[in-house]
C-alpha cells in the first residue's frame, strides 16, 4: 500500500468517524425510537423541584407511574437548573437524562430547533393523543416551536390580581376592578403618599416590581409578538403599545416614576415574608397561583382575595383571561430508551389523575383540559380563580423563540426606558425594539 493511499484511507476513516461522532451527538429528533417499551429498563428523570414537599409530590407521581408500568423504573434527580440541562443535553452519554423538565418555557425554541429534545408528535400520534384537545391553547403554544412539539406542559402557572380586602373595605371599594379604568381609579384611591414615598400603595406598576412585567400586563391586550414568518411584530401590533401606554399613565397618576421606584427599592424581597403585599404595603398586585400558598403558609395577616387581572375597557367582554406559563418536559434525543421515556412523559402530562394529584400537591394549575375540569382539583375559592383563568380561551402566553427569552428582554428594556422617561417616543422605541429582536434572532439562525 503506498503512503499516498494509506493517507487517503486514513483521511476517509477519520472523516467517517467524525461524521459518525457528530451525527451520534443527537439521535433521531423525529421520535423514531425502536426500543422495547415492555423491556425492564431504568430511565433517568431530571427535574428542578427541590423543596421537600415538592420532591415528595413528584416522587409520589413516579411511584404511581411505576405501579402502572412495573417494567419501567424512574431514577429522579432533583434541583436541576437549565445550565445543567444544557450541558447534559450537549454531552449525552450514559449518565445523561432520558426525560428532562424545566421551569422556564423560554428555551423551548432552542430545544426544538437544535433537536436536543425529540419531536413528540409521532409519539402522540402513536398513542392516539390529539394535543389540540388535550392541552389548552397557551400550554400548547409554549411547548412547541415552528410545528415541532418537542416538549409538553407539566403543570401551569396562571396570573391574576391579588387584592387586600381590608384596604378595599376601608376605601369603600366593593369589589376587585374588572377594567383598566377601574384598576387605575382604585389604585389612586388606595394610595397614601408619605414624604417622597408612600405609606400605602394601591398598585405598583413599576416594571422592576415583582411580577409587574410588560409581558404579564400585555397578555390582557392579547399581543401577537411574531408574524407568521417569524419576524417581530411588536412595532406593528397596537396591543403592546396600548399596554405600555396604560402602564405609563398609571405611573404618572400614582405620583411618577421616581416616587414609585423609591418605594420599590425599599420593598421587601418578592419570595420572602417581607413581600410588600404580604406586609400590607401594597393593596393590589399581579401574581401567580403560588402566592396564595405562600401567604397561607406565612404569618401574614393580610385578608386577601383573588380575581382575574383587569382587561382594557374596550375588551370588557374578555374579563377572566390572564397570562399563562408553566413547567415543560421533554425527551432527550440522546436517550436510547425513548419509548419507555415516552410512557413516563405521557403519564406525567396526560393522565388526568396524575396531573390533578401533582397540581394539588404543589399548588400549581393543572395543564390539561380534562384536569382543569376535574372535580378532584382543589376547590379552594382562590385557587379556583386561577383554574378559571387557565381555562379561559382568551388567556395567552409568550411564544417560544430560538434565542431564549431575548425578545422579552428587549421589550422589558424598552419598558424601563419608557416608564422612566428616558424614551419618550413609544412608537419609535417599539420600532427599534422590533429591529433589535429581528437582528438578534437572525444572529442565531
Amino acid at each position, binding site marked *: 500500500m503506498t503512503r499516498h493511499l494509506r493517507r487517503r484511507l486514513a483521511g476517509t476513516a477519520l472523516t467517517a468517524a467524525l461524521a459518525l461522532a*457528530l451525527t451520534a451527538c443527537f439521535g433521531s429528533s423525529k421520535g423514531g425510537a425502536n426500543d422495547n417499551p415492555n423491556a425492564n429498563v431504568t430511565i433517568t428523570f431530571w427535574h428542578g423541584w427541590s423543596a421537600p414537599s415538592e420532591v415528595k409530590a413528584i416522587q409520589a407521581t413516579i411511584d404511581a407511574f411505576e405501579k402502572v408500568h412495573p417494567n419501567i423504573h424512574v431514577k429522579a434527580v432533583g434541583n436541576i437548573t437549565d445550565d445543567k440541562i444544557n450541558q447534559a443535553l450537549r454531552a449525552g452519554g450514559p449518565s445523561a437524562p432520558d426525560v428532562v423538565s424545566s421551569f422556564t418555557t423560554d428555551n423551548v425554541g432552542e430545544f426544538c430547533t437544535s433537536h436536543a429534545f425529540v419531536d413528540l408528535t409521532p409519539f402522540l400520534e402513536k398513542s392516539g393523543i390529539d394535543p389540540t384537545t388535550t392541552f389548552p391553547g397557551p400550554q400548547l403554544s409554549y411547548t412547541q416551536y415552528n410545528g415541532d412539539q418537542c416538549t409538553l406542559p407539566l403543570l401551569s402557572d396562571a396570573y391574576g390580581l391579588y387584592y387586600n380586602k381590608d384596604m378595599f373595605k376601608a376605601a369603600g371599594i366593593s369589589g376587585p376592578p374588572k377594567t383598566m379604568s377601574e384598576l387605575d381609579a382604585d389604585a389612586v384611591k388606595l394610595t397614601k403618599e408619605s414624604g417622597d414615598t408612600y405609606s400605602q400603595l394601591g398598585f405598583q406598576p413599576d416594571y422592576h416590581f415583582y411580577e409587574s412585567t410588560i409581558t404579564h400586563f400585555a397578555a390582557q391586550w392579547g399581543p401577537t409578538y411574531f408574524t407568521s414568518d417569524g419576524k417581530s411584530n411588536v412595532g406593528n401590533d397596537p396591543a403592546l403599545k396600548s399596554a405600555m401606554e396604560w402602564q405609563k399613565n398609571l405611573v404618572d397618576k400614582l405620583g411618577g416614576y421616581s416616587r414609585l421606584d423609591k418605594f420599590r427599592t425599599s420593598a421587601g424581597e418578592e419570595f420572602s415574608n417581607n413581600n410588600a403585599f404580604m406586609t400590607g404595603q401594597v393593596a393590589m398586585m399581579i401574581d401567580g397561583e403560588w402566592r396564595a400558598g405562600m401567604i397561607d403558609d406565612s404569618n401574614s395577616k393580610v385578608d386577601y382575595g383573588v380575581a382575574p387581572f383587569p382587561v382594557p375597557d374596550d375588551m370588557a367582554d374578555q374579563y377572566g383571561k390572564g397570562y399563562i406559563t408553566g413547567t415543560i418536559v421533554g425527551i432527550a434525543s440522546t436517550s436510547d430508551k425513548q419509548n419507555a421515556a415516552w410512557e413516563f412523559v405521557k403519564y406525567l402530562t396526560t393522565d388526568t389523575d396524575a396531573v390533578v394529584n401533582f397540581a394539588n400537591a404543589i399548588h400549581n394549575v393543572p395543564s390539561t383540559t380534562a384536569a382543569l375540569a376535574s372535580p378532584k382539583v382543589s376547590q379552594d375559592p382562590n385557587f379556583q380563580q386561577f383554574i378559571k383563568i387557565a381555562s379561559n380561551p382568551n388567556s395567552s402566553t409568550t411564544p417560544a423563540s430560538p434565542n431564549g427569552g431575548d425578545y422579552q428582554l428587549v421589550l422589558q428594556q424598552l419598558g424601563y426606558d419608557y416608564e422612566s422617561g428616558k424614551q419618550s417616543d413609544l412608537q419609535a422605541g417599539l420600532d427599534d425594539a422590533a429591529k433589535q429582536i429581528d437582528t438578534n434572532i437572525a444572529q442565531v439562525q
Partner: protein
Amino acid sequence: MTLTARPRTRRNPGLRRRRRRERLRTLAFLSPWLLGTGLFFLYPLATTAYLSFTRYDGFVSPRWDGLDNWTFVFHDYPFFWPAMRNTLWFVVVLVTLRIVAGLVLGLLVIHVKRGHSTLRTIFYAPFLAPPVAGTLAFVFLLNPGTGPVNTILAHFGVSAPNWFNDPSWSKPALTMLALWGVGDLMVIFMAALLDVPRELYEAAALDGAGAIRRFRHITLPHLRPILLFAVITGVIATMQYYTEPIVAGQVASGQIAGSGNQFEPGYPNGSTLTLPQLVYNLGFQRFDIGAACVVAMVLFVLSMVFAAFLMGRGHGFLAGED
C-alpha cells in the same frame, strides 16, 4: 574541501545523536509545561478563536460563518460598548484605588505601635468572605430604604444616594465593596515594606529627608516590582469581574431570574454590566457561543495589551532598581 568534508561526515552521526538526545532530554524536562500549556491554554485559545468565526449553539456542530459574529458583537449587540466602557472604568478606577488602599493599609499596619495584629486581622478578614455573601451584605447595608447606612446618614441630615439602584452610584458602590476586601494587597505590601532596609531610612533621616521624600525616594523604588505585580494581577482580575456586579445587579433590581430565564443586564440601566457577563448572556442564555467567543477573544486581547504595556513599563522600573 574533501579533507575537511570527510572527517565532518564521520563525526556528524555521533554529534547528531548527542544533539538529538539533548533535544529529547530538554523536551522531556519541558513536557509537563508544554502539555499543560498546550492542553489548558493553547488548545482552548485556538478553539475559542475558531468558534468566534462560526455559528454554534452548543448543540449542533459549528458552522463557518466568517466575520458575522464579530460584526454582530461590535455593531448590532447593544450591550457590548456599555460593557466595554464599564470594564475599562473598573480597570482604571478600581485597580488604582485598590492598590492605593492596600499600600496605605500596609503602611498603617507596620507603623502602628500597638494592636497591629488585630488591625491586620480586621483588614484581612473581609478578603476571606465569599464574593456572593460579601455582595449580598453590601446590597443590604446600602439599601436606600431599609439599609443601615442610609438610615444613619439620614439621621445626620445627609441625603444619601441610592447606591446599587442608581446608575451614577452603582460602580462606586462596587468599588467600595472591592476596597472592603483589599486585605490580600495589604498583606503583600506589608511584606514588601518590611523588606526595605531600615538603615536607608535612618541615613535619609540623618540627611534631613522628610517622611514624603523618604517614601518617594526609598519606599516607592523598593515597591516597584510589587506594584507592577499588583497592577497586572489587578487588571487581569478586573477583566474577569463577574460575580459581584451580577449578584449586586440582580439583588438590587429585586428580580431574581429563575433558572434558564434571561435577566436584565447590568442593573441599573446597564451601569454594572461587564464583559464577562456578556460571555454568559450570549453563550448560555442566547445559545450563541460563536458571539460569546468574540467577547472572550476581546477580553484576551485587552488583557494581553495591558500586560504587555505594563511589562514594558515594569522593565523600566526593574532596570531602575539595578
